[in-house]
């Protein structure tokens, strides 16, 4: 019975992915991509990974979908949605088919010649759990055992925002999107936004012993911010520019401060003092949640800042 569900998911996911790529209409492609994210979330549940399912549903389907739809709307507005682009040539099709089949073949060969693992890493995790300061293994891995990865990952996020900001030009005012003047939307926002904020904090708190944590909470926070932004309430006009920038860097800063502070006590980088791990992890996670929320919001607002006027933009193709 369970295998039946798995096979249905397998066929569904592959069919949706194929439809997503061969569909003529770009809008249809994006919608199918969002659908794929939701199907994958169910798949992650089947794989016993509720944390990834939460992140996939919130980030993979939700925020990526909003970003893609927004770009699509932008391209449409400026009149360059090439729905009837000429189909790529035959040579390209053959090249694509041959290379993708080669990749699939190689991967299949790897899957069916799987070596037995040298160490049983889950046993190591289970052994070290009591010292980690939290009781949910994924949070323990993310913020204690392999906090190096997480620190660098937050660094990558900050870097992405910096590159995005650097690509932004001066003329691009942040608050130009008119927003939806729909009365029902604004009435519902007063109900939805507090609910989203509470859910975000709940996810953060739950991360200590259940699926949840800073990433999922940050994604939820970002969703609330983006909803506000689309509805026409600009966060960037409520707080100062410097506050926003500080917020973007807060998570990375706090994480780095905690990581290096252990050097002062003569311990190696990225270790926690005995007994204090739980508190420090919660502190880092709080800062990370706020920063991830703001970073995802910034990536969204950078992406949807308006184009130049035609006469200022330099050489236009047509």
């Amino acid at each position: 019975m369970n295998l039946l569900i798995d096979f249905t998911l397998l066929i569904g996911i592959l069919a949706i992915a194929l439809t997503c790529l061969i569909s003529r209409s770009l809008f249809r492609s994006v919608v199918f991509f969002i659908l794929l994210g939701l199907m994958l979330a169910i798949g992650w549940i089947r794989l016993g990974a509720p944390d990834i399912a939460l992140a996939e549903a919130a980030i993979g389907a939700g925020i990526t979908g909003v970003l893609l739809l927004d770009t699509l709307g932008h391209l449409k507005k400026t009149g360059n949605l090439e729905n009837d682009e000429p189909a790529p040539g035959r040579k390209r099709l053959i090249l694509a088919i041959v290379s993708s089949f080669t990749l699939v073949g190689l991967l299949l060969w790897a899957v069916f010649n799987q070596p037995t693992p040298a160490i049983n890493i889950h046993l190591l995790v289970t052994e070290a759990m009591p010292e980690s300061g939290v009781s949910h293994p994924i949070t323990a891995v993310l913020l204690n055992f392999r906090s190096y990865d997480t620190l660098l990952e937050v660094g990558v996020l900050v870097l992405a925002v910096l590159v995005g900001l650097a690509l932004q030009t001066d003329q691009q005012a942040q608050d130009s999107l008119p927003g939806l003047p729909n009365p029902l939307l604004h009435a519902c926002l007063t109900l939805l936004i507090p609910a989203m904020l509470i859910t975000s904090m709940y996810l953060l708190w739950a991360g200590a012993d259940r699926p949840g944590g800073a990433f999922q909470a940050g994604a939820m926070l970002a969703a609330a911010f983006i909803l506000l932004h689309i509805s026409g309430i600009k966060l960037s006009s409520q707080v100062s520019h410097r506050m926003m920038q500080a917020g973007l860097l807060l998570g990375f800063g706090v994480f780095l401060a905690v990581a290096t502070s252990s050097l002062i006590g003569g311990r190696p980088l990225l270790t926690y003092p005995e007994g204090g791990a739980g508190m420090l992890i919660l502190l880092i996670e709080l800062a990370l949640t706020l920063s991830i929320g703001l970073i995802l919001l910034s990536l969204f607002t950078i992406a949807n800042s308006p184009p130049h006027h035609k006469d200022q933009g330099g050489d236009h193709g047509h």
Partner: protein
Amino acid sequence: MDTNLIFTLCGVGLCGIGFFGFIYHRHLLRRLIAFNLIGNGTFLIMVGFAQRGQGVTDHVIQALVLTGIVVAVAATALGLVLIRRWFQLKGSTQLPEDDAS
């Protein structure tokens, strides 16, 4: 046949489909979607592969994939910013080397 193997194969399929789309399509937005498909396929392979080897749920690989998803969305957003900027400067949603073929 267990769940982990099925989803590993699903990941292999996603990678193949994504790779096909990445080479075949010229529209940059479609390429970005194809790139995301490859990413999702990789995540599925990673978790399915590790858990099949261990025989139990593997929290280390799950945590790594969790960070991977967040980085993927950052990369996608950055890609979209670049596509828009390119479109704004050149008025095209393709790369110049693809215009000929």
